[in-house]
Each structure stands twice: as C-alpha cells, then as structure tokens.
C-alpha cells in the first residue's frame, strides 16, 4: 500500500495523477479463513483491521452482501461522543473517542473527524439536574463534560431560539468539547484500506446464506459465492443481526427498526457544534459541505424497509425548527433510513453466543457510528482470544437472563419505549 501524503499529491500533480491505485483489492474468496467477519460496515472493517494490527492475524475475510459501508455506516448522522451516564457505556465510548482523535493518522486516511463539541440542551430544571448528574458521572471517570449556563449556550449557538416563549425553552446545556462529527464513508474506506494492506480479504457482493455446522459448532458459512470454512465466525451486521443469527438458530434480544435522518442544501456555517436534545430526541449538526443534518426518533415499529415514515420525519424537523427557527428557510435535499438493531436495554451486544465458534456484535440501536473504533477493537480482542475484552465484558449476550442489563434511559425492555 502506498502511503497518502502531500508530497505524493504534488508528485501526482506533475504526472497527471496517474499514480492512483485501488485502495483495496477485490479478491476471490479462499476455501478457509481463520476468522470470517460477516458484514463489511465500519464495525466489521475496524474489527478486521485491529485483528490484523493488534493481534497479528492475517488469514481473515470480511464478507459483505452489498458494498462496504453501504449499510448503516452510510446511513447515520455521523455524531461522535462518549457522554453516557452509565460506566460500562461511557468507558466503551470514551475508549472509542480516544481512537477517533488519532484515527486519521493511524489509518493514513483523512476521516475528517471534527471535534467541534457535542452539546445536550436542557429545557427544564429537571433536565438540568439530569445533565449535571450525567456530567458528574463522566467526570468521575476522567471524561470531559462541562455544564453550560443559558448564556454560554446562546454564545456558542446564536441561532437557537433562546426567547422565554420559545416552544422548547432552553435553560442551559452539557457539552463534551472533544465530541463532534466525522466523514462516514471515509471511516469505512480507511479501515478497509488499512485491513487490506495487512492481507485481509474484503469480499463484496458475497451474502451469507447459512452456517456450516459440525455438531453444534459453526465451522464455516454458506455464501452466494460458495462455501467458505472458518475457525471463528463473527456476526457484525447491525440491523440484520436477527436475520443472520436466526440462520444459526438463535433468537436475539433485538428488534429491527427504521431510523431516519435528513440533510438540507448546503449553506455557510451556521451551526457550530452538534446540538442535541434528549428530552426531544433531536440532533442537529452541519456537515463540512454545509448541509444541516437532522436526526430524530426511530420509527418505533419493526421494519427492515430502509425507508422511513413521513410522520416521524416531520416530527424530527418540527423539533429542529423549534430549536433553530432560521432552519425554516432551508430546503431538504435528501433523506435516508437505516435498519437499526434495537436491543432490549439500549446497549450493544458484543461477545460469545451459545453456538461454539460463533460471535456476535450488534444491538447498537441508534448509536453505532461513534463506537466504530471501540467496537472493532473489543470485537477483534474477543474474536482473537475467544474471551471478552474488559470493555465489552459487560455487554455479553447473556446479560438479559442474568438481570444485568445496561439501561441508560431506564425505560425497560421494550425498544419502542426507548
């Protein structure tokens, strides 16, 4: 793999840019791999990268039914943060946030990570108490969180409706200054290029249609490009976790729902941070291209449709407009939906399954993008050693039957009440 550099660009400029090579190979599947990862999204590719980089494994394949990064990696709002209240969650996401800060250098690929600050708004006394509590919990574990006064919020985001008769009055906020956003495709492509350079086979247009079993154990996968043997198999397919796990006879604590987001035409910088309101469940940020990116609630009923419901979209936009009235002048240019695997406590599942040699990484609900590096790192550890990393140990699949759920919102087992 040739390294990307400013000098290389300059040299290319003098040679008509003829030096560009494909960033990863397009190999035929081999008959056997030590580890097969099902799903070529950010998480799967990061897993393959860290398996090769950290654990020194080389005989690895990533199987992707479509094209890499074409699922939820390309269907989110690209927000990166670690401001969770519960310890297992903020430890995992904070580990990821640290990796985000060095990711472009690590991968020699510009993922355009922009730590512009991730801010939660508080709309009431109760909200402010909740935010203070969350910030305290984070600071106890060395994660940055600053409670903001109303004036500080207004100074950071002058276009917020701060008037006393606003539909959602703003009393203050909680900001994580190291949070921000990144370029989603670049994350998938950067990890793919990095993994490929270690010899990982990234096999696209290769859908897994079943598991090859020896007794109870999984010893390979059936795919649309033939049977491939494997020492260990890792499921990493986000919204389709239930579908793939069912091929191995597993029923997961997961329900797939649609989550949609949308973007306006590009305008000059008007939103400086990532504005979030958890009381409303609304996310607003501005992409580097200038478009205002909105996100809201999931559609709240099971769906694999990858298309959203106008009613939910309207709700998200109405909240955004109430917070930042100036947005009403913008035209919406694009909307998209991803299939999110809503777990039954709102936290991810990373670890073993009851089937020998089969592992699962899923249940990321609507919060998977920010976890990409941490998810890859811990899943790689789990797949390489057969044991969980301390960071993903609390997120095992059997935590539900043990009563050890990690329920950040305290809303109980129903994903549609989250």
């Amino acid at each position, binding site marked *: 793999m040739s390294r990307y550099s400013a000098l290389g660009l300059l040299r290319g400029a003098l040679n008509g840019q003829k030096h560009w090579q494909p960033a990863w190979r397009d190999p035929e599947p081999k008959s056997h791999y030590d580890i097969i990862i099902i799903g070529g999204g950010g998480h799967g590719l990061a897993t393959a990268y860290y398996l090769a980089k950290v654990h020194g494994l080389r005989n690895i394949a990533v199987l992707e039914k479509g094209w890499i990064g074409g699922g939820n990696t390309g269907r989110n709002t690209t927000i990166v943060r670690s401001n969770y209240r519960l310890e297992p969650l903020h430890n995992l996401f904070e580990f990821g946030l640290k990796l985000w800060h060095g990711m472009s250098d690590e991968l020699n690929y510009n993922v355009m990570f922009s730590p512009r600050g991730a801010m939660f708004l508080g709309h009431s006394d109760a909200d402010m108490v909740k935010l203070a509590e969350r910030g305290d919990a984070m600071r106890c574990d060395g994660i940055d969180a600053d409670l903001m006064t109303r004036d500080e919020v207004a100074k950071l985001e002058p276009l917020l409706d701060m008037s006393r008769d606003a539909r959602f009055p703003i009393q203050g906020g909680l900001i994580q200054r190291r949070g921000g956003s990144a370029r989603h495709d670049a994350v998938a492509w950067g990890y793919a290029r990095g993994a490929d350079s270690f010899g990982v086979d990234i096999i696209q247009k290769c859908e897994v249609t079943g598991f090859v079993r020896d007794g109870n154990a999984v010893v390979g996968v059936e795919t649309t490009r033939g049977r491939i043997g494997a020492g260990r198999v890792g499921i990493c397919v986000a919204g*389709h976790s*239930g*579908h793939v796990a*069912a091929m191995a006879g597993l*029923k*997961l*604590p*997961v*329900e*797939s729902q649609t989550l949609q987001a949308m973007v306006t035409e590009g305008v000059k910088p008007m939103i400086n941070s990532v504005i979030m309101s958890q009381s409303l469940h609304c996310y607003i940020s501005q992409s580097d291209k200038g478009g205002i990116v909105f996100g809201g609630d999931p559609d*709240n*009923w*099971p*769906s*694999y*449709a990858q298309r959203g*419901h*106008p*009613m939910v979209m309207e709700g998200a936009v109405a909240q955004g407009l109430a917070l930042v009235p100036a947005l009403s002048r913008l035209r919406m240019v694009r909307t998209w939906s991803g299939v999110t695997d809503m777990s*039954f406590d709102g936290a991810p599942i990373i670890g073993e399954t009851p089937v020998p040699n089969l592992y699962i990484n899923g249940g990321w609900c609507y919060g998977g993008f920010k976890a990409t590096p941490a998810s890859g790192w811990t899943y790689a550890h789990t797949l390489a050693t057969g044991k969980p990393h301390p960071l993903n140990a609390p997120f095992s699949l059997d935590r*539900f*039957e043990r009563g050890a759920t990690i329920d950040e919102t305290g809303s109980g*087992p*129903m994903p*549609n009440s989250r």
Partner: protein
Amino acid sequence: MMQITCPHCGPRAQSEFIYERTVDSVVPLDAAPEQAMAALFSRTNPRGVDEEIWRHTYGCRAWLVMTRHRVTNEISATRAVGPEALP
C-alpha cells in the same frame, strides 16, 4: 404511511396506531422464569412476515393483531383481540 384496518373502526391512517410487541412475546401470567425471560427478551425478528400487536390508541383504543411483512409493509390481515373477539 400504512393504512391499517382496525377490526372495529375500519381503515384508518397509521398515525392513529401504536406498535406494542409481537404475539410470541406476550408473557403468560403463569410463565416459568425461563419462559418469561425468553418471551420478554428475545424476538424472532424475521426479515419477513410476523404477527404483531398494535393498539388503535388514537381511535377506539382497542388492541389488534396485525400480520405484516417487514420489508414491504404489506398487511395481510388484522384481527381483534380481547374479550370482544371471543366467540
């Protein structure tokens, strides 16, 4: 948006209905702990047809069972549940 046929009110806009859970995840009152755990915390979650319980919350407020395809959103049947659905 889907149009859902309420067994009591006829065809109505989806915005009047709220999804509850799947039929196979109803926990019987006399369920053993393992059975209750399985019903509460695991789903078939098929990329196809499943039977779901919805409620006509902003209408007659009755529960109903809907048979729906989760990719195409095609609703093949709705039926009433509760005492009024008994013969």
